[in-house]
């Protein structure tokens, strides 16, 4: 059974002064399996937050099904084993960080002594112990994000849903959040997070889905996506006369050092042989791989192209 399942979900929302309905989700289908870290990616405005709201039962989808642990998200029991960090955490400004985490613990009916222990431990783990007794209205964005993460973990969830968990964090904060996510993953927690920062997704996810204009345009395991996809190699050598390697595209020369960009694997072998035959030294060969970003920009360009083609057809 999938932990999270979207099947052909569509949703439109009222928009503008006349509240005309605008299609936000057209056809979202995806599934997140037990123990997986799933990156729900897409540009701003693609419908990521809307999808998560459908999942949590805050919005009712117009078509399709959304399920958490095999139950509809609108069923409170489905949310018993779930932790959720909203986008730009909006929390009660009049509460202190500790009171907030404790309040959310009470909403899970966690007994007081367990709640107190967990609250302390979680506040510690997100590095907020010193600020826990300050009112939330004094918190910076990064601090809100940290306390938000602490409240999302108060019920020791089996499924963690994070909406843009890295936004607003400084590099140290991002690293800490990443460490927390990896730690939870190693303990078997399923994590479903939305992001538009692809480097984070690449570092954390087992699988990713790309949402674009309300549709999933690409869904794949990260390893399969990135495996063996070397675009070119940067190759550097010393002590060789440049003329001997004139058949390769040279990028730069600095001192006695030559820099090349080599696109084919076979060509690379030949290059190494040549350098050594000329009595030179290979200093460095590094592959330049495709990143998730390359794939997604490619996928989105493809979609846009198709859209344009469709429009052109309609016009003719």
């Amino acid at each position, binding site marked *: 059974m999938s932990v999270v399942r979207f099947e052909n979900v569509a949703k439109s929302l*009222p928009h503008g002064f006349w509240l005309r309905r605008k299609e936000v989700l057209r056809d979202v289908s995806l599934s997140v399996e037990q123990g997986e870290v799933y990156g729900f990616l897409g540009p701003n405005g693609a419908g990521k937050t809307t999808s998560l709201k459908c999942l949590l039962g*805050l919005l009712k989808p117009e078509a399709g099904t959304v399920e958490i642990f095999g139950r509809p998200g609108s069923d409170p029991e489905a949310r018993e084993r*779930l932790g959720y960090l909203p986008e730009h955490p909006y929390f009660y400004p009049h509460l202190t960080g500790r009171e907030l985490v404790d309040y*959310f613990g009470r909403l899970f009916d966690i007994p007081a002594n367990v709640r107190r222990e967990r609250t302390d431990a979680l506040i510690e783990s997100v590095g907020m112990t010193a600020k826990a007794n300050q009112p939330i209205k004094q918190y910076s964005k990064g601090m809100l994000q940290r306390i938000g993460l602490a409240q999302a973990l108060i019920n020791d969830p089996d499924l963690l849903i994070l909406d843009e968990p890295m936004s607003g964090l400084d590099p140290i904060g991002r690293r800490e959040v990443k460490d927390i996510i990896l730690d939870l993953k190693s303990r078997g927690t399923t994590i479903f997070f939305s992001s538009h920062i692809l480097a984070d997704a690449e570092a954390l996810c087992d699988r990713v889905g790309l949402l674009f204009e309300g549709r999933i345009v690409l869904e794949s395991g990260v390893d399969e996506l990135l495996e063996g996809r070397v675009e070119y190699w940067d190759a550097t050598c010393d002590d060789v006369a440049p003329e001997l390697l004139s058949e390769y595209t040279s990028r730069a020369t600095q001192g006695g050092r030559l820099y090349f960009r080599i696109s084919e694997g076979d060509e690379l072998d030949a290059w190494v042989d040549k350098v050594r035959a000329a009595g030179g030294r290979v200093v460095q060969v590094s592959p330049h791989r495709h990143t998730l970003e390359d794939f997604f920009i490619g996928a989105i360009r493809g979609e846009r192209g198709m859209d344009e083609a469709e429009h052109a057809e309609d016009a003719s």
Partner: protein
Amino acid sequence: MGRVWAIATHTFKEAVRDRILVLFLIFAIAMMAGSTVLSWLTVGSELKIVTDLGLGAIAIFGTAIAIFIGITLVHKEVEKKTIYAVLAKPVSRTQFLIGKYFGLMLTLAVVTGLMATFYLALVWWKAGAFPSHLLAAILLTYMELSIITAVALVFSSFTTPMLAAVFTVAVYIVGHLTWGFANFVNLAPGAGTQYLVTFLYYALPDLETFNIRSRVVHGLPVTGGYVLDAVGYALAYTAGMLALTAILFRRRDLT
């Protein structure tokens, strides 16, 4: 139940940490204290002025707080998006609404309690005793507040605080005049208008039922049966309003 209670106590905490509540309380106490000054102007009916104005102050400021906080009760949570994290917990929308409602009723109980304590002390100081009917009058005022809060909650669940305030105040005013509707039915032209008036007569709360203040002030009898009936009516009306809010709110998309 624990979850509803958690939401209620949190709503209470939020209200208490807001300065507006203290401000209302200061005004109410100032008004009661001022009534003693006013009573010097009258001869022979000093006590009447103090008892009357005091009960009036409790009702007016109680109503003001019920409307002022009631109209933002749900709307603020949606507007400030604080509701997302709450409804992502295993809490149903109905539980959320009931929790918010009881949170405000808890606040009103404490505020009314404080005003009543000051008021009864004042009467005691002036008269050396106080008629137990004063307690009945305060209880019924609180029951009226429970209806006003429920009405404010209905409006708060689907419209802006501004409109909710207008509607709630309208219901409050008309609610004190519904006894006139019974007479109006016979005068209304046409069956359609008669049905409408009859419908409004039953749909709107009869708030005048809870106003036994002048009777108490003038020493007229108030029976236990009357008080019980009024309390029963308030509970039934409130339950109806909460059910209506739950139905309206359950369908709503929280964008």
